[in-house]
């Protein structure tokens, strides 16, 4: 599905990503673990084309997509959920979804009804300004907004961050549900519990370098790695 090969990304003069490589296969959830500032969001943005890498190559479904602008990435089937949510605050929930809607090739595409069905909490908020929603509601909206573009691959950047535990649980369920429907997910997380529960494979990024890669089982057992790169 997605193959990222040795990308290097800069912000101005600062070199953020160093030869980052990762891949996501169809139907799996891959998580990118790392502390804040480790380069998770930059990796996501580089894939999406928001901060195009200076070197390296990204292929999506076999096509070389390095340097594609974000809108083309989206049309090629990548849905993006940024870490700071970035809902269109002045627009209503419904409008947020409407402007993101893309027609899909298959029959069971996502539309507004299906998003509302998926997140029933949103349907009551249809006409509410997105800027005044609570954090959890905004997070549902950003995921919904990404889904309605009918992606094959979802880039989820810290979806559970700053949310109450109940909502985190709910989101986890939803993400698994999405996986079951055949969607591939690249999940960036610093909360390793969520990541360990959801993913099939994991990468650990630290200071812009991929330090570890392996299956979730391996990671779960490798206390040392987790100690070193992740937490206390």
């Amino acid at each position, binding site marked *: 599905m997605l193959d990222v090969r040795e990308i290097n990304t800069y912000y101005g003069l600062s070199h953020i990503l160093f030869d980052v490589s990762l891949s996501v296969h169809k139907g799996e959830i891959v998580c990118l673990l790392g502390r804040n500032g480790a380069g998770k969001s930059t990796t996501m943005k580089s894939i*999406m084309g*928001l901060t195009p890498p200076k070197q390296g190559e990204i292929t999506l479904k076999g096509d070389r997509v390095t340097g594609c*602008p*974000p*809108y083309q*990435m*989206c*049309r090629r089937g990548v849905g*993006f959920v*940024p870490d700071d949510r*970035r809902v*269109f*605050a*002045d*627009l209503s929930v419904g*409008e*947020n979804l*409407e*402007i*993101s809607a*893309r027609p899909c090739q298959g029959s069971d595409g996502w539309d507004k009804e299906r998003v509302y069905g998926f997140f029933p909490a949103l349907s009551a908020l249809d006409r509410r300004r997105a800027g005044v929603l609570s954090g959890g509601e905004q997070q549902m909206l950003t995921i919904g*907004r*990404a889904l309605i*573009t009918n992606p094959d691959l979802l880039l989820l950047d810290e979806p559970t961050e700053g949310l109450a535990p109940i909502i985190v649980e709910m989101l986890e369920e939803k993400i698994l549900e999405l996986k079951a429907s055949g969607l591939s997910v690249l999940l960036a997380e610093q909360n390793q519990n969520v990541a360990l529960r959801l993913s099939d494979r994991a990468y650990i990024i630290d200071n812009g370098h991929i330090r570890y890669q392996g299956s979730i089982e391996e990671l779960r057992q490798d206390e040392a790695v987790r100690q070193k790169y992740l937490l206390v």
Partner: protein
Amino acid sequence: MELFPSLSFSVLCIQILVGLSKATILFIVASGLTLILGVLRIPNLAHGSLYMIGAFTTYSIATAFSQSNLGFWVALLLAPLVVALIGLIMEQGLFRFLYKRDHLMMLLFTFSFTLVFADLVKLVWGSDYRSLAVPKIFQGSYLLLGMPFPRYNLFLLLLGPLFAAGLWYLTNRTLLGKISRAAAVDREMVGAVGVNVNLVYAAVFVLGCYLAGIGGALVAPTQNISQGMDHSIIIEIFLIVIIGGLGNVWGALLGAVIFGLTDAIGILVAPQFGIVFPYLAVITVLTFRPKGLLKSIW
């Protein structure tokens, strides 16, 4: 002596109506400016020039079709399109490459456009005055409360709400409007949900220019079409946009109404200093609400 001795009710009413009909033109032109300001963040000083080009083009088209009675109407249809085309060329040819520059650069860049357009208009149309007759059906005036009120002004007065409604529909009900409202706040994210933002920018710029063209076409029958039209309107509409709140179409409406009314009523109260009133209104507004009356996108 300087004051009107009899500030009667009917005079006041007519003044207000006239002020509002003037506000219509200002609103149409200013809304174009505010759209461009809000979505593309270009403080487009060339907007006045586009308005002037609209008026001149209207003149040329209307005279070309002067045999039929429809000359003006054909021009009203075509001239704004010509202006929109110029806008498209400007945006795609030049502005597109400058979005990352800061506002001062943009401002000066658009100012150099006003210089270029001023001379281009002179090259194309020469420096004579042009004047266009009011279309047949709007010639003459109605008697309202015993005062004559030009039919054409009434036409403008009716157009105002129509345009306001149209813009409301456009920004709130159409996809383009919704996208442009979103792009005004977060361009990158709009791209990330699959919208080609460059196209949206071009569309909004063209729309803004189109509105300037319409404004120019609509004033063509009421006043001198001459060089210098750009200078006189651009500061006014900029002030309107500022007091209304940058990038806010309703702000443009409110600002235009304030401008039109203070001007028209100022004439009644102190004819000699009528011109000062709109400026005073702006200063008052900005003293108390530095970001304009309504919500500013900036």
